[in-house]
């Protein structure tokens, strides 16, 4: 019979998040040590993945995010983040596949709306993308950094004009902010 996974103490996790928010540089090693101690704690893998995204180590970040979702399939913000990472890596099909279970969130949930808005964006349905992302922002009162990230995307969409032919604009979406906002509000799972 399988026992419950051993999880890192909430206080320790919050402390780690606070350190990352303060810009501490050695917190990745601390996260690694905690993962060695609590290998089945999805939150730690998600935290590590987000930290790696934040410092541009995408190759290591992706397996960490995948691990978080594998350990906790209902970990909604981790699932959203993994899908978003895949989307920004150019794999829209895989992103949509990862996001699939988020459709089970209640109607009007901000993550579900963000997925809907980004799905419109993938299809070049820019007007609908803005409408739905705006609705997601209005519905999200627990994760302010994520709202800022979506606002950045909306701004980029609004900047699209036929005369603007520069190469791709990369929104400065902070992956780490997704996590930090979410963990800070203690709503890591849905």
């Amino acid at each position, binding site marked *: 019979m399988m026992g419950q996974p051993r999880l890192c103490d909430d206080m320790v996790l919050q402390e780690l998040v606070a350190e990352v928010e303060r810009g501490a540089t050695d917190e990745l090693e601390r996260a690694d040590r905690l993962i060695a101690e609590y290998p089945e704690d999805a939150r730690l893998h998600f935290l590590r993945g987000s930290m790696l995204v934040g410092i*541009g*180590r*995408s*190759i*290591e*970040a*992706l*397996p960490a995010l995948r691990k978080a979702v594998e350990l906790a399939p209902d970990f909604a913000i981790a699932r959203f983040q993994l899908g978003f*990472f*895949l*989307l*920004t*890596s*150019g*794999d*829209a099909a895989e992103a949509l596949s990862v996001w699939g279970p988020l459709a089970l969130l209640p109607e009007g949930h901000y993550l579900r709306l963000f997925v809907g808005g*980004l799905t*419109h*964006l*993938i*299809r*070049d*349905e*820019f007007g609908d*993308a803005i409408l739905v992302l705006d609705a997601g922002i209005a519905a999200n009162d627990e994760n302010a950094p994520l709202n800022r990230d979506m606002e950045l*995307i909306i701004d*980029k*969409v609004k900047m*699209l004009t*036929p*005369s*603007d*032919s520069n190469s*791709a*604009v*990369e*929104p400065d979406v902070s992956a780490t902010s997704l996590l930090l906002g979410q963990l800070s509000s203690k709503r890591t799972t849905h």
Partner: protein
Amino acid sequence: MNRMFRRGMDLLVRSERVEALLWVRLRFDQHSDAREPLFNRYAGFARSVARRLGYPSREANFKDAEQWAYEGLLQAIDSFDPLRRVPFAAFAKPRIAGSVRDGIARNTEVDAQRSQQRRLERERLQSLKERNEADDPGDAIQLLGRIAAGLAVGLMLEGTRLIASDDEPDPAPSPYDSLAWRQTQMRLGAAIANLNASEVIVIRQHYEHGLTFAQVATLMGLTRGRISQLHRAALTKLKKQLAREY
């Protein structure tokens, strides 16, 4: 030409993450199909490394230098450890340069380009000579006709950038190309859209980058014989499609 609209995905996609995903797929997920897009991303870089070596100075020999550069690139892709956090270009550059220098040492300047071209032509010929089960084993005329038509399609494909990947600039027709030739090439370009993904890779890498079948096999994680089959199947389809349109 300016694009009227920028695709929504263009707003979201980050180049460094695209590459990161390819490395994860190749190294951690064991998806050998990630090798080809990685190769395409760095093929231009490999050519520039070869060019910067200053050899060969004559255009006639550059095909060989490209080949050695691609050889080095393929080896670099397969030996690169993305977790070491060294940029791939920095890792690959000395290997590409080394491969070109080794190639120079092995070849005489006089024969270099000719030998490479002959190698490619031999492979194509051999591929086209392989028989279909439906062929009459005794019908030499049929065989010769198929080979000639296949080689003609191959000639049209070679160096035209009809099958350039997304990472490469759009093909620009040479002002010296005749109208008829360009129209045929355009039809050929449209016909390529009907090939399956594996056939497109074989055609692109063999005719655009000049990779040998063995190199394409490495790239795709298949056997050389399978590449030869895919090559023949692709040329047969292209030939049939062109014939239908005339």
